[in-house]
């Protein structure tokens, strides 16, 4: 029956990509950029890591675990950085509409991912339509050697790959950065009221660019975690699903607070797989209904949170708007 010690680690594993995505998006949105390209960016982050790992596995004779982690990691960061730069250039420099640009970038990212994914599958000549990078995945999933000694506690909290802990550390760092540093204060001012920030001598364009690019890179790691850790190094096209959209929903759900994101992402991860644990017998159509739970939950929370209208819980005031200095 339902066993929390089994359920919890699975919920966490589901939640970590969402946490990466929502932390990255929060940082981006705090600079006033609504980046709806996050699903595409996470997808590209995943496939870039796969390409890196694939090339390394194919071309090396003596397999070095350290390089096997480092190369996909850097490849993933580079891939999502390029996506972030495209978005920034279009919306900040050319002042294109953020929603349209973001949606286009999602379509573009998924297309790019499937294109390279398909090509690599062709290259391996495998029978099944996926790429298996088990050697790399093992390195990513390596957990603390003493985890088993702690019994249930070890199973629940210590048996994750390093990317899971990195996600939590990044979320805490972003939260600290936003609320406790001068640069974070400037960033929030840029997202709230860019012309005020500009008048105070803050370089609005630079802040927006950097926040968007770093946000994209963080989100891209979510894709990497999904392939290398959650999916055991097996890439199959469209396997990433709708996690990117859930990450964006999570940003609103956590009222732009990365620390809240840590718990909420695990909650969302749990809701995402809850249908597996709800007894529905042989009735498969019922199971499909249960899959709606996280989305219904999001809608309900959005309704509740918009009724409770606290000023601090509102999105950054100029979210989604381009900044023209001449407009002042």
């Amino acid at each position, binding site marked *: 029956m339902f066993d929390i010690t089994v359920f919890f680690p699975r919920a966490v594993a589901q939640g970590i990509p969402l946490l990466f995505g929502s932390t990255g998006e929060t940082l981006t949105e705090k600079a006033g950029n609504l980046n709806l390209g996050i699903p595409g960016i996470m997808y590209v982050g995943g496939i870039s890591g796969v390409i890196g790992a694939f090339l390394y596995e194919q071309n090396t004779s003596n397999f070095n675990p350290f390089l096997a982690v480092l190369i996909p990691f850097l490849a993933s960061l580079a891939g999502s950085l390029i996506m972030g730069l495209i978005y920034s250039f279009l919306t900040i420099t050319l002042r294109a509409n953020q929603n349209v640009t973001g949606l286009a970038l999602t379509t573009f990212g998924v297309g790019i991912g499937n294109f390279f994914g398909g090509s690599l599958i062709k290259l391996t000549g495998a029978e099944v339509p996926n790429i298996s990078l088990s050697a790399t995945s093992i390195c990513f999933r390596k957990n603390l050697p003493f985890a088993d000694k702690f019994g249930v506690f070890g199973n629940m909290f210590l048996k994750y790959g390093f990317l899971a802990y990195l996600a939590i550390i990044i979320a805490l760092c972003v939260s600290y950065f936003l609320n406790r*540093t001068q640069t974070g204060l400037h960033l*929030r*001012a840029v997202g*709230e009221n860019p*012309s005020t*920030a500009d008048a105070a*001598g803050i370089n609005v364009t630079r802040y927006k660019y950097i926040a968007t690019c770093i946000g994209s890179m963080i989100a891209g790691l979510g894709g990497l975690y999904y392939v290398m850790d959650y999916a055991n190094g097996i890439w199959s096209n469209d396997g990433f699903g709708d996690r990117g959209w859930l990450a964006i929903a999570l940003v609103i759900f956590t009222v732009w607070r990365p620390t809240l994101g840590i718990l909420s992402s695990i909650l969302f991860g749990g809701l995402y797989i809850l249908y597996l644990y709800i007894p529905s017998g042989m009735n498969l159509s019922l199971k499909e209904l249960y899959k709606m739970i996280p989305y219904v939950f999001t809608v309900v929370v959005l309704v509740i949170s918009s009724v409770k209208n606290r*000023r601090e819980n509102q999105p950054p005031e100029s979210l989604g708007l381009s900044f023209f200095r001449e407009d002042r």
Partner: protein
Amino acid sequence: MTDKKIAVKMRDISKSFGPVMANDKVWLDIYKGEILALLGENGSGKTTLMNILSGIYCPDEGHIYINDEEVSIRSPKEAFEYGIGMIHQHYKLVEVLTAAENIILGVKQPGKLDIQAVCERTRQLCSDYGFELDPMQKVYDMSVSQKQTVEILKALYRGADILILDEPTAVLTPQETEKLFTILRNMRDSGKAIVIITHKMNEVEELSDRVAILRQGRFVGDMLTSMTNAQEMTNMLVGHPVSLSIDRPDPVDPKPRIEVNGLTVRNEEGVLKLEDVSFTAYSGEILGIAGISGSGQKELLEAIAGLQPTESGSISYINDDGSKEELIGKDPLSIANMGVTLSFVPEDRLGMGLVGNMDISANMMLRSFRSGRSAFLNRKDPRRLAERVVEELEVVTPSVATPVRKLSGGNIQKILVGREISSAPKVLLTAYAVRGLDTNSSYTIYDLINKQKMNGVAVIYVGEDLDVLLELSDRILVLCDGKVSGIVEGRKAEKNSIGLMMTKLGGTG
């Protein structure tokens, strides 16, 4: 004056916006330990001059000396470095941040953000000068005067020695104004140079040590406040009347049309904008409304048009047969259907009345779409009207299909005014109809207004230019701080007496 040290010298400053000379070889001296009042009518270039000093505009020519050293100020940041802080009319604050966070914004300081230290210094500044402020309060929770305090503290925190305040009292209650003046005097006594931009004569007399007067972008003169009086300043402010000749046909068959009785209006912040205003507007005459900007003109027109909630009083529309209809409580649409039209030209011309992204003929349609009989829009008539307005008012536009947003301000205005006038109203309310227009188009508009008057329309004309008001209006109602300061005959009125009535109730003393 000789023992005072000079803080800023501005010499031969010129700045033009397109064909308009906002500043024309202006000289200005600002001394330390002195409050300078910069006085001038609207559009006389006061704010432009101060924006140049605070780095928002670059002057076309001229020199600025700070502490006897020539400088060029290219951005607000550089102005801060020279110790110049400007408090704008529209505050630049981030609403969800606290006062302290707003104050520290953009200030370079080493290491980690120590908000406690910022609060501490802010409290210190508060007690030095007599402000009352909680540094941890969020800006959105603040009253207008508290927000102003934050703005002033922002400048002081950066170490400003030269403080410029652009119409600081426009949004304050008398008590808050009194408090602000005390603080400004404290600052002066501690050796700071303070400039306030104003056009309220009583404030100049009460607060300033010296007064400098600008007129139409030119420097008229400066003198010690103690050596002058309101009469002399008004003379300098208004200058010699520019010779204008606008037709003023005699009113045709004047009948009472709009009767306002004891009208009192408060704005959203609860500030009293109109107090016990009563007057009657007749058909076939132009009732001019004079007053310093922000004296309640906007609220008065909007109240008549049904856009402004009123606190007390009545506004009646009087039909030809003498029967009265109350306008308060009616919605703007039914008031408009009775023939009351409002063409108000606010600071942002697009804000009210026109849709920037729609083309000229579609904007014409905004008035007429309800009158169509079929399910489809009648596009022909609005287009014809658009073409007529474009031709008659000489609107510069590629075609009537151009989005209004792309036209220049003056042209946008012509379209707005042209549309309102063409709707054949019974009552025409118009404010600042010629703001920003060149002389030629201004006269076209005056002619149009006169034509309406000849057709028996009751025109209420709010204007900035006293000379024009005097030439155009049959009667002039002078507003002072939301109260009726007096109603004078346009043909007999004198400019100076109206100028005095604008600044002092009743114009005496």
